[in-house]
């Protein structure tokens, strides 16, 4: 098998890279073991959320130059502010082509509400999470209703409401809570307490009970302006469902991310995969790249778990296998390995220094920063320290950034995937 570009790992980073390569005429295959981190995420793309010590960043683009200056080894520092800006706008356009709109607060961050009722800064969100109209509505101390679906145990409206109340932005808002019920024809169908976000999302995707649900929402909301509900308004049909619900209720319907599976994340995943397929990309799901072989500072071929006897070859390779959670890195008792190419991983030697004893320590955990180090072109180093010329690394596998403490997860994944494609296109 021979293609121009083999991408290992089909998360947000690998997909962004694949879409850009395929759009420019390269033949691309993505091989991905299990489903990616989008299924566990908020579905919003963080660009730069926090200063050190957890102070919130309001306009990330104004701060990026300083941030890059003070973080010389950060992935952002390898390609700079312009690339980041182009990457995010490219990403938004590509997703939009599949009917999923992403919104930003111009060049600034916006907040989204978490399932605990706290606020998190982010840069790009779906329409039900952020848009100018919702933002204006929130600024006028509106009445807010937090509404659950009866039987959905991954969401507690009272917790959300009481935490929102503690926030100075909301303490003048009237907040009510309540639960709607599955439409009559659907009750008894499934053991109600087993409902997960995906089950409810499927009912919405059918699009058949929207009127009934809108009536129920309206009753609970009373004279609120905004109704916050768990993010389960369908995956494939969500845009349509959202606007019907808004029209029927006259409310702003606001989606709050849930526990996994994240419907907001799955919408993004679906849009990206389908865009990649439209461009002729081949996505091989459920196979793991077992090993990559390197000859003369270049990747020679790779083999996968399902077809260990077949050599897959490409002109370029991208390693976008994510962090520990996705299997991009593996931690052993005293060491951390990158399992495909055995690349040099940056980490501190003594295991005791890997994590902070306080789980919520404001400086985060050191292991968040561990990862594969690369040169400015995103080429990594093999275990003898030589650069591998036709291999690029992107996304959560990279070292020297902390997605959680900095609030840079999605931004690094998107921009490094975009930049890896840039380097490949430059060479081909």
């Amino acid at each position: 098998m021979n293609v121009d570009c083999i991408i290992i790992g089909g998360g947000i980073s690998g997909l962004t890279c694949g879409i850009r390569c395929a759009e420019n005429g390269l033949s691309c295959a993505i091989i991905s073991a299990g489903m990616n981190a989008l299924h566990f995420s908020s579905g919003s793309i963080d660009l730069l959320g926090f200063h050190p010590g957890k102070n919130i960043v309001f306009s990330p683009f104004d701060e990026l130059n300083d941030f890059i200056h003070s973080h010389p080894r950060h992935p952002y520092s390898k390609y700079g502010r312009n690339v980041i800006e182009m990457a995010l706008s490219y990403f938004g356009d590509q997703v939009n082509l599949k009917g999923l709109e992403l919104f930003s607060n111009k060049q600034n961050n916006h907040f989204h509400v978490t399932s605990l009722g706290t606020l998190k800064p982010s840069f790009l969100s779906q329409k039900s999470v952020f848009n100018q109209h919702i933002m204006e509505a929130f600024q006028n101390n509106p009445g807010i209703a937090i509404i659950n679906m009866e039987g959905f145990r991954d969401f507690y409206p009272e917790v959300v409401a009481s935490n929102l109340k503690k926030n100075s932005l909301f303490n003048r808002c009237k907040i009510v809570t309540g639960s709607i019920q599955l439409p009559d024809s659907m009750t008894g169908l499934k053991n109600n307490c087993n409902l997960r976000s995906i089950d409810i999302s499927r009912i919405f995707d059918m699009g058949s009970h929207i009127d009934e649900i809108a009536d129920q929402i309206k009753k609970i909301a009373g004279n609120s302006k905004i109704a916050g509900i768990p993010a389960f308004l369908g995956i494939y049909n969500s845009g349509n469902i959202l606007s019907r619900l808004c029209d029927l209720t006259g409310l702003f319907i606001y989606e709050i991310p849930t526990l996994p599976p994240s419907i907001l994340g799955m919408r993004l995943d679906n849009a990206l995969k389908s865009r990649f397929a439209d461009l002729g990309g081949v996505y091989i799901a459920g196979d793991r790249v077992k090993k990559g072989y390197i000859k003369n500072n270049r990747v020679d071929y790779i083999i996968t778990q399902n077809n260990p006897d077949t050599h897959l070859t490409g002109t370029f390779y991208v390693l976008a296998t994510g962090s520990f959670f996705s299997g991009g890195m593996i931690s052993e008792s005293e060491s951390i390995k990158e399992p495909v190419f055995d690349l040099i991983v940056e980490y501190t030697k003594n295991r005791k220094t890997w994590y902070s004893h306080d789980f919520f320590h404001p400086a985060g955990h050191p292991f968040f920063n561990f990862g594969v180090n690369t040169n400015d072109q995103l080429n990594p180093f093999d275990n003898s320290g030589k650069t591998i010329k036709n291999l690029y690394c992107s996304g959560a596998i990279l070292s020297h950034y902390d997605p959680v403490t900095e609030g840079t997860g999605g931004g690094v994944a998107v921009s490094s995937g975009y930049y890896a494609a840039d380097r490949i296109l430059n060479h081909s």
Partner: protein
Amino acid sequence: MINLENISFDHCIKCTVCTAYCPVARVTHLYPGPKQSGPDTERLRIKNPNLLDESLKYCNNCKRCEIACPSDVKIADIIQNAKWKYSPKKFRLRDMLLSHTDLTGRIATFAGPVFNFFTRLFPVKRLLDFFLNISSKKTLPEYARGTFHHWFNSCRSTQEDYDTRVVYFHGCYVNYNDHELGKDVLCVLNAMNIGVTLTNEKCCGVPLIANSFLSKARRNAAYNIKSLEKSIGGTNRKVVVSSSSCTFALKHEYPNLLEMDTSTISSHIEYITSYICKQFLQKNIPDMKPLNLTAAYHSPCHLERMGGVIYSVEVLKRIPGLELKLLHSECCGISGTYGFKKEFEQIAQDIGNDLFRQIKSLQPDIVITDCETCKWQIEMNTPYEVLHPVSVIARALSGNKFDLTV
């Protein structure tokens, strides 16, 4: 005692991603989904088998949950094993007839056209429906007269002239239902200067596994492994398989689910398009004339599970004049014998509907897929002819020696 070897369920992080991709859970509330039926209840079942619940039977073993799982839990294997290990053993004539393809095939091919004539009659369908719970809305697959294995004798000698020869594992479908596909495999390989030998084979076991005849599946597996070892005879000869599900069984279900030792044959076994693709890459490409056809390609679940789709697509892309449209990956619903059973018929239909809609909206000249049961399901539900990738190559070959071209 808890068997500590089988604890892949312990890797489950309870994310429910598997259930989000299960085609059965998508369409019916009767099935709680892979997370609950697999890892969640397995930990209870190993302590107390009485905690088994009826809903396991809804799983169609498509393996899409395993493709989705980020933690490598062998969810579908856990479910098939539980069905077999803990379910009360009830004999059902229908399941036995549908799953013992060797037996049914031998009887049906003996009577060939007569059998087909009867199973297509409405009163007969009603009787099958009434007595055996085989859905009357489905048409049982057509049977050929005689077996492929028998037909092969007529051209066996021509195959001995080739320097390179492969063992062809044709499977029950080619043997009993569709000799043409077997002949196409021969034509295409011959056109690439490769000869074919057969091996003594029994049903690979896929329908037996799906209907919980696991001991019988193990016996067949043992027979096939031995027979293939003999045909390989210590050489590096390849075994090519034209059914994606047979390939899946030989390569994956044997070692993983049936726990058979396949180390002597595993590296020899190759799905046909993967073999052809590698030949193409070594510039062994037969002469093909342009087809001028638009085709929609459907990737079968089991081919996806073993990472074989890329080869079929690559091979198809090299056929001149074939405009290929890849369908969004979705289960067709039939899952071997599942969709023929009356109690699952509606579910199978609901699962497949999205796929049928996609195909109809593309209005292709033909549909291409690697799996025989996907072919039946798509032909029953859309107006299009469905071909195996190898049959499409055969059509493109000029001067087809078995004269099969249209």
